[in-house]
């Protein structure tokens, strides 16, 4: 194949003193203008592998063997000074969180100029200035003096990420490594950033590695996709081919976890979690979580086999796996039924302020008993404010009526009677800050129990185990602290805390946005089960339209503090009326798009 720009051969990365393997036998080739999606769950070693392309290893990790070539340059043989020239010049990196990657004390213009100056781009100041303007135009940002004089905190998240992109592309690198650059951005912003990346890569014939945990994000963007699990590439192939003929059970499970826009599908999480370095089983590391596993799997690592054009897979049973019907073809067309229940929570003409600023205007929604209403919108649309008004957590001025079972609700949780406080429970977005890090799971879950119920010590212990069981966790976790739990487990504990109060209404504020896609799928599974078992009334706040079809009967779309569309989910998704909903739908990344692309 011509135009190969990056070759990685048998790359092994291990922890330095202990020799514990992190990445093993990683083989990659990239041609000019190609985007490779590197996909995997947390702790799969994808970021470690990606940063190694710049010959950068985290503290404690070391490249043991293998080679990395960019053009004819041996990256691993370069000295410190040459490496500095290479990084940012020939190969550049776009980090996950632009907010912390840009120096908060420097104006963005200066930061951009620095890169050009360091790499000696152009011959004169004027030339560099021209390049800077060019870069800003390429990432669709103004290059006015005024804008360049801004500090990073004066830019929005999407703008910051574009500045980071401009910086990465400024010296016309040959290879670019993007480490989850759109995680934490809104769908609309994400769509813009992805478009910018695609345009830049095509225009400058750059080879790109895009690291992500979400297959849907790279589906439209990447030409080829590499799936990593426990430090190995388990499957690599052209995007469309991989989606249609996924040959590794893990790839199939990942596909199952991705929500789709067209047609309903039951989301399936992957039970368990990816083993971290040092705890990986012998043989195929996925075997313990794999439904295809046979005895051979846990005994011996399968070799890499070629199953199609540029399509390689590591699985003993890849033929059988491949023969299964494509994941995306499996659809479940049953629709969620509305029982036509009476309204439990009624929000009428609610306007709320944040400080002195009016942030939601004249909202009318109804939460029906035993049903789920999805509240969709970008960040800043006021959806969290609305959810908090209902939960009694909004400390600023509210006007209008919020009713519960026909009676007006006091504004703040503290002034609501006990019976109402326990009936309405709230699950927070960020599982990392929702649990007190200094309390054990038992202490956290006991809090609602001791406030709302008069249990004896014995009853309380039974109840704790019961509540944990509801969220599919076992009671050995009771003595753990939150930092000993994974993100998914933390979110389950947070849900368990809400359930311990025996609520009738559960408000879920973007409960999956901090989690891996596979973990997100299992949390959705859990919420669906709880809803049908306990008959919870739910308000499900999210920015991901693709998610709501799986869970909500009704949807309310919010934009700039107003509800722009409100109706049954299926109708809204099939035939959106509001301009804003259509835009949101178009920007939501899906895997289907990749199938129809080629």
């Amino acid at each position, binding site marked *: 194949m011509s135009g190969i720009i990056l070759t990685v051969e048998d790359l092994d990365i291990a922890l330095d003193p202990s020799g514990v393997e992190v990445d093993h036998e990683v083989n990659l080739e990239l041609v000019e203008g190609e985007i490779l999606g590197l996909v995997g769950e947390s702790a799969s070693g994808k970021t470690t592998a990606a940063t190694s392309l710049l010959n950068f290893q985290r503290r404690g990790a070391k490249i043991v063997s293998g080679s990395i070539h960019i053009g004819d340059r041996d990256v691993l043989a370069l000295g410190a000074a040459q490496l500095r020239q290479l990084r940012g010049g020939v190969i550049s990196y776009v980090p996950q*969180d632009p907010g912390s990657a*840009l120096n908060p004390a420097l104006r963005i213009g200066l930061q951009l100029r620095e890169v050009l100056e360091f790499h000696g781009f152009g011959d004169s100041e004027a030339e560099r200035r021209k390049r800077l303007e060019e870069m800003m135009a390429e990432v669709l940002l103004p290059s006015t003096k005024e804008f360049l004089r801004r500090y990073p905190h004066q830019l929005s998240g999407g703008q910051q990420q574009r500045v980071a992109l401009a910086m990465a592309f400024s010296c016309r690198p040959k290879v670019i490594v993007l480490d989850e650059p759109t995680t934490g951005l809104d769908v609309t912003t994400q769509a813009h950033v992805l478009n910018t990346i695609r345009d830049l890569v095509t225009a400058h014939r750059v080879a790109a590695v895009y690291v992500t945990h979400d297959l849907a994000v790279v589906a439209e963007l990447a030409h080829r996709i590499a799936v990593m699990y426990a430090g190995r590439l388990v499957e690599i192939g052209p995007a469309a081919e991989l989606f249609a003929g996924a040959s590794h059970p893990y790839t199939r499970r990942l596909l199952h976890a991705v929500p789709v826009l067209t047609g309903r599908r039951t989301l399936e999480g992957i039970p368990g979690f990816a083993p971290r370095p040092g705890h990986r089983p012998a043989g195929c590391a996925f075997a313990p979580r794999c439904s295809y596993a046979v005895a051979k799997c846990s005994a011996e690592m399968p070799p890499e086999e070629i199953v199609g054009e540029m399509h390689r897979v590591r699985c003993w049973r890849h033929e059988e796996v491949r023969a299964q019907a494509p994941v995306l073809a499996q659809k479940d067309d049953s629709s969620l039924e509305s029982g036509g229940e009476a309204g439990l929570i009624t929000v009428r003409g609610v306007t709320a302020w944040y400080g002195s600023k009016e942030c939601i205007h004249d909202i009318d929604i109804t939460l029906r008993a035993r049903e789920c209403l999805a509240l969709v919108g970008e960040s800043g649309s006021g959806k969290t404010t609305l959810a908090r008004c209902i939960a009694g957590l909004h400390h600023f001025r509210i006007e209008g009526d919020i009713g519960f079972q026909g009676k007006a609700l006091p504004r703040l949780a503290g002034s609501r009677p006990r019976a109402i406080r326990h009936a309405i429970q709230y699950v927070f977005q960020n599982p990392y800050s929702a649990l007190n890090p200094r309390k054990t799971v038992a202490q956290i879950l006991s809090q609602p129990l001791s406030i709302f119920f008069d249990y004896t010590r014995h009853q309380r212990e039974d109840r704790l185990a019961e509540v944990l069981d509801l969220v599919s966790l076992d009671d050995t976790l009771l003595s753990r602290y939150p930092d000993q739990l994974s993100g998914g487990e933390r979110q389950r504990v947070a849900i368990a805390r809400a359930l311990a109060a025996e609520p009738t209404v559960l408000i879920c504020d973007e409960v999956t946005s901090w989690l891996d896609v596979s973990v997100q799928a299992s949390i959705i599974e859990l919420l669906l089960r709880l809803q049908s078992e306990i008959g919870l009334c739910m308000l499900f706040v999210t920015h991901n339209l693709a998610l709501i079809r799986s869970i909500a009967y009704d949807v309310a779309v919010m934009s700039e503090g107003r509800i722009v569309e409100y109706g049954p989910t299926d109708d809204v998704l099939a035939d959106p009326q509001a301009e804003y909903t259509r835009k949101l739908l178009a920007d939501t990344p899906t895997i289907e798009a990749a199938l129809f692309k080629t």
Partner: protein
Amino acid sequence: MSANDSVSAGERRVDALDVSPDEALSETLGHDLEPSPARGKQRRRDWVQLPLDALHYRVTQAGLAISLFIVAMAVVGPYIAPYSPYEFVTAPYAKPSATAWLGGDNLGRDVVSRVLCGGRTVLSLSFIATAIGMILGVVLGLVAGYARTVINEVIMRGLDVLLAFPQIVFVLLIISVLGPQVWLLVLGVGVTLAPPIARVVYGVTVEIKERDFVMAAESLGVSHLKIAFTEILPNIVSPLMVEFGLNLTFAIGTIASLSFLGFGMQPPAADWGLMINENRVGLVIQPYSVFVPVTLIAILAIGVNLVTDGVAHAMIGIDRDTGSA
């Protein structure tokens, strides 16, 4: 900024982990979404775990050895002193001899005996003063930091007024008005220590109260006072430990200075600060009676500071993962 820096920025997310030094290596490689089976169930509470972690560092070990040496001297000293500290053993400012190893002081009392007996007061008084300062500072800072109302302003501006007085001047003022009493000295020093502590506690509290778990407790209807002391306080234990060490050093210095100025312990009590004052006239003739207590106070301050350093070091490990992942 070059790509070089960007890469280290990428590392940040993973560095935001709660790890003990031993596990740091394997932890850096996995993302923070995974639990570590290695970090078993035997993890203890902060106020136990932090000092234990701190002991891994050389600084702490050295500091602890130094501090314990001085403490032991102060505690055991009176029992092993060759003479009573009030006994006239030799001539004023006598040179060291077989009877008085470090010579005599301004009145001819044995310097060794006075040094051995004079540590108790400094140590215990500064410890009590620090405790008073901590309790006051923590309560005020916590309440001010958590309160969203006018209470916040009242407390913090009140503390600003206190903060504006130089510490020694404030204590001198109340002592010269009410007379040199030991309890007044301790209370005075304690009160002047409180404002800076309250500032630190206030700052941390303001940050912690924004975390969702505080809001979660509010939504359950937990009372404000209870939230402040059971939800927020446990999260600021580690900075408090460092504060305690720092303030103990301040208190030692202040109390010794006040004794030196004649406002602390009164003659004929044996006290390091007082000894410096009494004997400074004869510094040229008989340096030991000044030099030894000065050195001991300095060593004690250094020791406490080293321990504090170690605890601060260990704290970086413990406090990493508290919600900002």
